[in-house]
């Protein structure tokens, strides 16, 4: 397996200006997901991932670091449901950190919002909070809807999906 191609490595320290408002947009099918840039650890190509031996694992791959630490990678579709390895066609992987744990999420495209482009997320209305969801807000960007999330919410949601999958398998 070739060495991971590191396209970009985000720094955890604050960039000049308002780093808390800097966003990375991920395109997953028709869904546009926004993550705070300060929570991004690494962006890599899917070709640099290691494929797990077992096909029944929820991860579609993992990135093994120099120190041997594996970073698991997951794939979601536009409805935020887990995708299997065979149906995955996405090329990019975004690694985010939450509570010391680094997870990866595949996406079709990704781009960073310009420094002067600001998202003004609105909280999710209460009537929509019936199902578990990583989405914490909605914003308008280029005449389209962007779903806003965070590393902690995304990690919690992935954990919930894996638990549900485990319960179904039993």
């Amino acid at each position, binding site marked *: 397996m070739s060495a991971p191609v590191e396209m970009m490595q985000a720094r955890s320290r604050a960039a000049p200006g308002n780093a808390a408002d800097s966003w990375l947009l991920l395109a997953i099918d028709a*869904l546009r997901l926004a993550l705070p840039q300060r929570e991004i650890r690494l962006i890599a190509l899917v070709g640099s991932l290691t494929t797990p031996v077992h096909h029944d694992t929820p991860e579609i791959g993992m990135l093994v670091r120099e120190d041997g630490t594996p970073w698991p990678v997951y794939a979601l579709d*536009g*409805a*935020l449901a887990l995708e299997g390895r065979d149906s995955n066609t996405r090329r990019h992987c975004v690694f985010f950190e939450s509570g010391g744990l680094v997870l990866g999420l595949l996406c079709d495209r990704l781009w960073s919002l310009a420094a002067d482009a600001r998202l*003004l*997320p*609105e*909280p*999710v*209305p*209460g*009537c*929509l*909070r*019936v*199902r*578990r*969801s990583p*989405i914490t807000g*909605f914003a*308008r960007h280029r005449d389209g*809807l962007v*779903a806003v999330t965070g590393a902690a919410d995304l990690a*919690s949601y992935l954990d*919930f999906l894996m638990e*549900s999958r485990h*319960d179904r398998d039993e």
Partner: protein
Amino acid sequence: MTATSRAWVMDTGDGRRVAAGARHVVEYLLAPETVTVPRLPAHCAGLLYWRERYIPIIDFAPLSGARADPRRRAVVLAYQHAPGEPLRYGALLVSAPPVETWVSDDMAATLPESPAALRHVARACFRLDDRAVPILDTRRLFAEPLPAALLPGEDKRDEPSTPVVDDRPVGPLPENEPPVAADADHAPEPTAPGPDVVASAADPATSGSQEPDNLSYCVVIPFATRPTHPAPEPVAATEHSVLSGYSSLPDGIPEQASPPAGVSGLAIAAGEGDAPSTHSVAAPRSSATLRSFSWLHELERRQNPAVSFRRRRLFAVLAALVVIAVAWLVLSNFPKSRPMPVARQPGPVAAGPSSVPAAPTQPPR
């Protein structure tokens, strides 16, 4: 005299009607463009981008197992988390324009048992045309998640792990959006009467606690500005919750002593002092009442420059086609309509003295 409350009855398209207090009904949309987002509950059709914000759209059809009508419209409703807080909005899918009605305590009825989800978001019920019409609690409808047990096909394990409290600040409000008065809106309940009336200067006790006592409530229904009408005047005040329903209308609303001829409308003017007797809302039946949003929406549609331009262009095209058709008919029938002149058969000319010139004529130089 029985106190009456003004309400709007909405057809949700599955043979069911619901109602909302007049001060909660903001706008009627003909073609709402819904955006789907992941992980929506069954009764939420998606989000609607309205006035630079995303608001949820509720669809009651799945609650009764009915299929959603793809040609549906929407009514935007307002609510508050607590009295005095900024207005928030949500939309409800409907099949027809809302219809205004006046509700009194003697119309109170028992809430139907099913569907349970609708019962959960209703605050009261009244009987209209021998049918029970639940009155929506808009805050509970839009601000609180419905229990998964009340929704068909929902998995209780899929509920959020911790109760989510929406305590984050809402985005910046538009500059012209006023603070809302205390919610003194009460629908008639089976046991406790709670009239929802627009307080007039003569009845300050029923007004909200944050409204001046001497404020009379007049909102002028807008209509297309015509040369014969007087110069338009802006709505004087929008602090009252009734007026907030008209804040979406364009500026320059002409003030009239009575609605335009041939058009019904509720003429209420905003200002201090006593309300004019002709505009008294304490006796609503004596004044013309806005019966449906169809007229109001038609008015807005006419004032929409894009729509006006399209209409003018359409009329121009139609006029050109008519002219072309008439011209073709005339030209195609013209030769047939005028009989051909009968050519005179040249007959023998009788030679006579008169036919022979006396002297040869000379051509002119």
